């Protein structure tokens, strides 16, 4: 076996050990070392060179990045999650035929879908979904995310919130928690459009806060443009009427005149 590969495999074993004993700091350092090591393999994306150990190397690299994704969930670091997932993706998308599919593939893809849902990046969510084969949609992890998205779009927020109990994978919990906040933001956005004002108690109930204080904190953090007075929340300020768009009459007149002039000049 290639000594380089062995070295990385050993390093990865150390990483897994650290991960098992939940030593996250050690995990992070080991992981960044691993990534640097991985750049030295020409068989990995984007080069995909046909080296003798290509299959082992690809498998190992995929394993490392899968762990990196899971680790980032554990660290609750969304940026790292996105980064790692992006780097993992070529192993899922472009290596068919070289290495067998990973058992972790669908859970991680589902996780990513969930993340997009949490970040309210619906367009990207659907793009990702389109990239998946039809049979993947039957996988519980994917199905979960798709159903969540449907409920989310319908406005059946209660179903979204209750789905937390039925997660297909333990790593999903983190995102489900975050999803609650996303839902709240959605509701806040809708209320803003829908009402001129809401009483504090209604707002509290609507935004699923247990106390007034939480509501106040939320408003100051997320929506400083809202106004609280007389026991009600006023959204008026946010809806300052946009200036009515003017008809560009002068421009149109000029354009028409220039057409007329050019017509004259046609030789």
């Amino acid at each position, binding site marked *: 076996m290639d000594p380089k590969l062995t070295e990385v495999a050993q390093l990865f074993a150390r990483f897994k050990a650290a991960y098992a004993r939940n030593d996250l700091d050690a995990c992070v350092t080991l992981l960044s070392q691993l990534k640097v090591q991985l750049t030295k393999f020409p068989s990995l994306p984007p080069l995909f060179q046909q080296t003798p150990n290509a299959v082992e190397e690809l498998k190992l690299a995929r394993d490392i990045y899968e762990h990196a994704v899971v680790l980032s969930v554990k660290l609750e670091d969304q940026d790292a999650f996105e980064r790692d997932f992006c780097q993992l993706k070529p192993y899922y998308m472009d290596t068919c035929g070289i290495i067998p599919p990973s058992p972790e593939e669908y859970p991680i893809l589902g996780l990513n879908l969930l993340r997009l849902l949490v970040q309210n990046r619906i367009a990207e969510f659907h793009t990702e979904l389109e990239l998946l084969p039809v049979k993947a949609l039957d996988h519980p992890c994917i199905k979960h995310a798709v159903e969540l998205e449907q409920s989310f779009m319908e406005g059946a927020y209660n179903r979204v919130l209750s789905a937390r109990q039925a997660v297909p994978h333990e790593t999903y919990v983190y995102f489900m928690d975050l999803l609650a906040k996303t839902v709240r933001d959605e509701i806040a956005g809708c209320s803003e459009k829908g009402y001129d004002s809401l009483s504090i108690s209604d707002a509290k109930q609507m935004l699923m806060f247990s106390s007034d204080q939480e509501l106040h904190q939320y408003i100051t953090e997320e929506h400083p443009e809202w106004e609280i007075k007389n026991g009600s929340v006023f959204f008026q300020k946010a809806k300052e009427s946009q200036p009515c768009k003017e008809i560009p009459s002068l421009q149109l007149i000029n354009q028409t005149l220039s057409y007329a002039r*050019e017509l004259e000049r046609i030789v």
Partner: protein
Amino acid sequence: MPYISRRPPPSLSTLDGKRIRDLLLLQASPAAKAHAPTPPEIPPPPRRARRGAPGKEPPKAADRSALAAHMAAAAVMVSSAGSLLAMLQEPAPELKLHALASLNSLVHAFWHEISTSVSSIESLYEDEEFDQRQLAALVASKVFFYLGELNDALSYALGAGALFDVSDDSDYAQTLLAKALDEYAAIQSRAAGEDKTMDPRLEAIVERMLDKCIRDGKYQQAMGMAVECRRLDKLEGAISQCDNLHGALSYCINLSHQYVSHREYRLEVRTFNLDDWDYKPCHTIQLLILQCLVKIYQTSPNPDYLSICQCLMFLDEPETVASILDKLISGSNDDALLAYQTAFDLAENENQAFLLNVRNHLDALSSARSDADSRATNAATEPSGDVQMGDDVNMPNGTALTVDPVKVAHADRLTKIKNILSGETSIQLTLQFLYSHNRSDLLILKTIKQAVEMRNSVCHSATICSNAIMHAGTTVDTFLRENLEWLGRATNWSKFSATAGLGVIHRGHLQQGRALMAPYLPQNGAVGSASPYSEGGALYALGLIHANHGEGIKEFLRESLRNTSSEVVQHGACLGLGLAALGTADEEICEDIKNVLYTDSAVAGEAAGIGMGLLMVGTASEKATEMLAYAHDTQHEKIIRGLSLGIALTVYGREEEADTLIEQMTRDQDPILRYGGMYALALAYRGTANNKAIHQLLHFAVSDVSDDVRRTAVLALGFVLYNEPEQTPRIVSLLSESYNPHVRYGAALAVGISCAGTGLSEAISLLEPLTSDVVDFVRQGALIAMAMVMIQINEPYDSRVGAFRRKLEKIILDKHEDTMSKMGAILASGILDAGGRNVTIKLKSKSKHDRLTAVIGLAVFTQFWYWYPLTYFISLAFSPTALIGLNSDLKVPKFEFLSNAKPSLFDYPKPTTQQTATASVKVPTAILSTYAKAKSRAKKDAESKAKEKAEVAPPPSEDTSASTSMQVDGAAAEKKAPEPEPQFQLLTNPARVIPAQEKFIKFLDDSRYQPVKTVPSGFVLLRDLKPTEAEELVLTDAPSTAAGTNAPAPSASEQGSGAMAVDEEPQPPPAFEYTS
């Protein structure tokens, strides 16, 4: 040579309608490459493809990975650059680096993905601590290239430093190199006041490229780039390292003439110190290049004096030319030949002022020398010898005559060279050539004469004019002599024209011109000798005879002008004076003409305006403003028109200098002055293909309210574009379909002017439909233009010529044709066979210099729209197509050379036969002709059947005649078995060599005479390898005997067996008939 053809695309920013924009798209945008993901607006220009060499160096680190990626691409390929972009966000620098390197190799496929996060790459480049900033810059540069942001791409490519590989063959590298060069050249060419800060990195890249080209042996590219970037040090380097020094130098001269003059470099700075050219702004780049060339020439072991003198002429250094010539004529016989050749080449460019200077300097030099000699010999006896220096030129020569035979030879050579420089020798030789080789077809004229109605004076004078043009410069006036009675029907202005026509026929007959015209000239005291019309015409004729060489006749014309009060005579005298004193800016003559102008007589004033313009051609003097002021004062439209043309003539060749005046004229209320403004634009920017001028003209062509101005604007395009005749048909093709007949007319003439004598296929295709336009004057213009394009082209060369000739005949014979188009057809027949079929219309000399007389001639010729007598100005544009070999005595020896093409291809058109003439007379009776046709067809059928029986194989038809509609008579074919046409032809000195034929001319190696310079046309000095043997001379001074009024001039019908019999022309073909 991609370099020369390159020119900046026209700026299209202004709003003149889509049509104009389309018209202005001189260069079709190159099609986007199929494979490249490049947006179409940044086509990686293939034009530079040959410049940066695809050197096969080992690929650099970055490229190696790219190579690997391509190799693996067959197996697996990433589907997105997302992972790499994500990796770029990693905190570890190694990962960033890896990501960048991978991106660099994949950028061609994923630039669209990378472009969204290009800002992060940019920030990497700006990060001072990141150690691979150059790589980041390279990636960013590539992304911007694919996005079409070439400026950003270039600035990042500069940031990439050494990683940007100039030898790369990719579209990216080539495009950016081109961009870098453009940028560099733009900065280099900025005027002194502007910001000239040069990015040292840009300079480094350009230098790397130049060095690479020189190293790879791509000298022409290197020279082109060096010229464009004004890096004369590199230019010199490229030339001096080049193995083919002569080729390199001539390429360079071409560059400096053709390309550099496009760029509006002015020749303002006349003096320039070669040593410190570095420090001076380079707006005299052309001068610099030429000086650079002269320097290289002079240091080379055997200097090419011909080229040096051409350069020096452009540099306007008559002293140096004079000293070179002086050195040469003091040398051996061969040197003298070289001197003569040089002088002929210089004289051909018609730069009168320069030639005069050279002559004066030559005089000064030789007198100084003989003075020194005489002082040496006579110092003791003649102490006052030094005072004669410069005082009396003849004296030293005179003394030398008695002293030394060497000096006699020198003096003899000096006279010869002065004669050559003054143009007299070439005029005389040309005259002899045109006389002896005259092949004009009198039958055509006869047909015209018979067809033209007696009372129609327009057609009558057009016929006289056509005759004059046909015999321009040949001194053959047989037709006029034979038809004196018919000629006498010309009255009033027709008489004026008829008399002036004699001037065209005798053009260049400097010695006897005045004697010839004597019967018509105004006689002092003697009243009633002739009408004022013939007197005026005779004065005009004198001007035409002496055009541009009027030293001898000026005084007489002035005298005549002063002594007359008849406005018709004044008219003729003003035109004559203007022609004779063309471009001399003579103050006294100017005063005389001005006096005529201020009499405010419409007829005389018009000619005075034109005459002043001719006198002041190209001087851009104060007189123009004066003329403009008077044009505003006067009430007569004729005078305004004359003046506005005159003003236009004064700005000839002045380009930007004339802009204020042009602006003034084109903004005027008076359409006639705007009309003059169009001519001013045409003449100021003649033959420059200047985009600004074209743009302006197109603008006026579609926006002016006056038809005259629009017509002239389109016509003027012909003058601006005559250096690139291929462009004109494309530019005016839309205008030629205009609804406005004036615009169509202008388009026809524009093509006629710029494509004159080229026989360009596109031009003919464009004119063909116009010759059957619905409007009569459009037909007229198209016929004339077509004749100008087809001049000297014969039927085997382009079959459409035959069709056109037949069409002309048909129009002339048709009773119901409009007078206008009939007149056009008559003139066109004249132009088609101009100068005894031995001249063409040429606006540029062989050394690409503009022929001032020709351009002016055509410009005034186009005035025939208003004033028919001005038609004769077209004779100024004629230039003989001959190769005339000369020995050291400037005599024409018997000498043969080879034309490596089928003789029929460049032959004279076959003379029309009596049969066609009679047949055409019979045409009106329709029944008879159909009957005859049917009969002849039946007869032919019978004959062919009989023949088929007799011999199995039908006679092979000649390939050239098969394409035409001619059919060889069966009987004749039987008698004369058609021989295969030879592939070459021996021509005898002096011979007709038409422009299209020039490339086939070869000189025989075993001939007694060897040319000094192997040029295919014009005057060639011949070195006699057997000087002891007696020479057989041809071309004695025949015209002077013919000029005597009693000697009968040979009629054209006997030309085949003519007195000179120097041409072994094939016998005229057997009778044939048209079957179409």
